[in-house]
């Protein structure tokens, strides 16, 4: 741990990097200075609170408290994913189910295979990693779905008019949307180690862990993210596409 030299004073000096972003925004008249300042303040406040909460949870080492953290993370991720599905009915419920199932299956597998232990120091951060990745995947699925139902509106109508069920009429959209949710994870896997040294691995190396051991953890994280984004994308898309139709199997915006 002696490698970690970030202190309050080094953080304050590091704040100069934010000024770089502010200066660029000002010079280029991007009008994002307010967003940057709010973003930075939020990041500092949120992370500080989370740091103290995590310290308490890890120290308490209580199963119920660990599960409570799991629930809070899943609910928050679902709420954020649902915002990206604005206009899709029951987006929160679909996101909640997708994130809950995706996170639970992945976490359970990791615990049962002995990859991680059921202790707050491992469960809480891993839950956060899984849920946030599913959240991003669902957001992409929803965005793709909304866009393609608009773009292929006529085609869906024609398929329905030929007597197709809503699933057959939406099959192309469904496949494209699931793929759009999974694609960033697949793309990032391809460049692992070549372009990026991801957070988990970097964190362990920073903390002085042998890089070969850190890589093993990163490979585990890769498997975990691939599984969880697949599960999350499939569940959210299969629940989401139905919301574009009414009970008479008609497109809702017709």
């Amino acid at each position, binding site marked *: 741990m002696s490698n970690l030299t970030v202190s309050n004073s080094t953080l304050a000096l590091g704040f100069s990097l934010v000024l770089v972003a502010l200066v660029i925004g000002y010079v280029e008249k991007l009008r994002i200075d307010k967003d940057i300042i709010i973003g930075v303040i939020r990041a500092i406040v949120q992370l500080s609170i989370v740091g103290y909460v995590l310290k308490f949870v890890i120290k308490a080492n209580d199963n119920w408290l660990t599960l409570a953290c799991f629930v809070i993370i899943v609910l928050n991720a679902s709420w954020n994913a649902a915002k990206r599905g604005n206009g899709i009915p029951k987006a929160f419920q679909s996101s909640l189910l997708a994130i809950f199932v995706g996170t639970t299956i992945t976490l359970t597998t990791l615990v049962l295979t002995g990859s991680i232990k059921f202790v707050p120091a491992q469960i809480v951060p891993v839950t956060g990693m899984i849920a946030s990745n599913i959240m991003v995947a669902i957001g992409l699925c929803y965005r793709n779905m909304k866009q393609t139902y608009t773009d292929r509106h006529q*085609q869906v109508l024609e398929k329905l008019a*030929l007597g197709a069920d809503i699933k057959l009429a939406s099959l192309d959209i469904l496949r494209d949307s699931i793929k759009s949710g999974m694609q960033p994870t697949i793309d990032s896997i391809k460049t692992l180690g070549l372009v990026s040294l991801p957070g988990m691995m970097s964190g362990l190396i920073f903390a002085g862990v042998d890089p070969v051991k850190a890589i093993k953890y990163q490979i585990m994280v890769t498997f975990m993210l691939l599984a969880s984004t697949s599960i999350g994308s499939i569940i959210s898309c299969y629940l989401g596409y139905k919301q574009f139709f009414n009970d008479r*199997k008609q497109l809702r915006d017709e």
Partner: protein
Amino acid sequence: MEKIFEVRNLFYQVGETKILKDINLEIEQGKYLTVVGPSGSGKSTFMRILASMISATTGEVLFHGKDIATFEPTKYRQKVSYAFQQPTLFGKTVRDNLAFPFEVRKQEFDESKVIKYLEMVNLNQTYIDKSVNDVSGGEKQRIALLRNLLFQPEVLITDEVTAGLDTENKAIVHKMLNEFNQRGLTILRVTHDETEIANATDKITIKDGVLQNV
């Protein structure tokens, strides 16, 4: 002749705008009914309601004496098929399109049947594997109509399907539809084409959402 459709006190509105006002109509099985009226008068909306693509705000549509709301929508649309003015072809090839009705009915693709139907609309078997980007507008409409007719429905609703087609393509479409009508297919045709209107034996007019003459 048995009544295939009975429409009673049908209204359709979007927000405060009334699109269709108190439509009452009976249509006999086997008819070739032409629906005319100015653009925006509600003809297509009425046809879409009959095809169960949208639902009436109030009123009833009976199909063989039964409220269409009681039918399973996909089964109903296989009986009452709707053809669009500017159809899109799905997938990559003509095959993808003509295989679709088989897929809907979970049946194996019957190439010999498809070739027979293609010939009916003056397209030979080489068209099956043609790219959808390589067919002309007229051919596209003929292929799209075949999607509706490969499994003969009881009713075919055509919404200005000959609009924008040249004389030759129009003649092919008319011939095909007449043949199917003679085989018992009920056809409801929305059109603005003066020749089609002049040649129509059964006609109704919708103006400002109101049925003018029955």
